[in-house]
């Protein structure tokens, strides 16, 4: 993997050719990078992302429609057969903070690379979503393990997130959605809610009942 770095604007990206990826996800102008072997992983607002977008990334293209995203470059390839969940997920979509978006998209290698580069596992996205809730929402145990490996065990007591307005800790949030009969987000490939619970408990999550202003179902 090449050195991970942040690209804050498009000025240093050299465009070889543009490839239009058109579909019901919208028109995405893609451009191939020159000059470096690495594959550009572009974390743009996921509202525009779909399977074709990630397939484009897997071939070494990136979307040109970057808004306020921070780009992350890394040379590891994305698996084109890996299904993207972005187009199917119905929940507030995080933007801005790469770690939150990587957690949301279930990309372990990106999470690991971002944490190694010093990304803050507590930092929320522009919408107020935190990395731990973004991965707990889908039951991504392998990502949760990476977040807790930073040694910041107070993450299991963190409650601040935009789609958790009743302010309950991650363990309660996970179990609430696990208990619901319709829980599609905990059936994605890679989702392991029981392992998530085990990791949260090992990190010291409280099992005492909590009282909140609102029910989670109100959110």
């Amino acid at each position, binding site marked *: *993997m*090449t*050195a*991970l770095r942040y690209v804050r604007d498009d000025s240093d990206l050299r465009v070889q050719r543009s490839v239009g990826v058109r579909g019901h996800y919208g028109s995405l102008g893609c451009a191939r990078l020159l000059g470096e072997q690495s594959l550009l992983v572009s974390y743009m607002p996921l509202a525009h992302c779909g399977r074709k977008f990630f397939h484009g990334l897997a071939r070494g293209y990136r979307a040109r429609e970057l808004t306020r995203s921070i780009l992350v470059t890394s040379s590891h390839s994305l698996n084109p057969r890996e299904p993207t969940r972005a187009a199917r997920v119905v929940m507030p979509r995080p933007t801005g903070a790469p770690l939150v978006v990587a957690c949301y998209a279930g990309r372990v*290698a990106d999470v*690991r*690379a*971002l*944490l*190694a*580069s*010093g990304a803050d596992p507590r930092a929320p996205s522009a919408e107020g979503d935190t990395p731990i809730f973004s991965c707990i929402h889908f039951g991504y145990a392998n990502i949760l393990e*990476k977040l807790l*490996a*930073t*040694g910041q*065990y*107070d993450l299991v*007591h963190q409650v601040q997130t935009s789609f958790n307005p*009743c302010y*309950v800790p991650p*363990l*309660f949030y996970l*179990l*609430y959605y*696990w*208990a619901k009969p319709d829980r599609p987000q905990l059936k994605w490939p890679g989702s392991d809610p*029981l392992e998530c*619970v*085990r990791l949260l*408990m*090992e*990190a*010291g*999550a*409280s*099992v005492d*009942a*909590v*009282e*909140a*202003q*609102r*029910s*989670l179902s109100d959110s």
Partner: protein
Amino acid sequence: MVRHDVFEYARQIGNADLLRMLEAAARLRYSPATHGRFPRPARYAAAELLRLGYQIGSGILVPVWAEHVIPFLVSRTSRGAVPTLPRSVVFIDGLSDEQVEAMLDGDYAEHATVEHQRRLDAKKARYVAIAARTLANHAVGMPMGPKAKRVNELVCECGGDLEEVARTDEETKELVREWISKISSYNGGARLGTDPDFYSD
């Protein structure tokens, strides 16, 4: 106010393992015997309190402190100062080769050396795999010149150590250089077997 109870949720889920895990956690009370079953931050909190007990007094006081006072002060959610390595060490496998090489002279040279060696071994294994695959293709009819065949055989014999292969003679050295440039352009050997140019001398 709405009450959230994990046990209620666990009963709705109906997972026996989950319920057992939660009940075991709720029952857990601190004692020297149960120390190992506590979360890591709580264990460090208990250790800090034990050190405090030693500072207060020695002799009979310490066991009394450990068995009768600390259980009241430590719970599963207690948090002591857990020592952690820097992120660059914990997630060293997420760093680039250049970053790992830069760490070789730093404070965590030991970790960097292990990781550096692991990457070298992985690279060698990859070279051997590509050479073996090329030879296998040759065995089933893919044409290959004698020099290219010899280089691939040498790569396998030398365990993927290209420097050792290149040391054999000047002619081989040049071929190894070509071999490296070719497999690099194939991005991990993805196109290997489809490009006849790879097999020519």
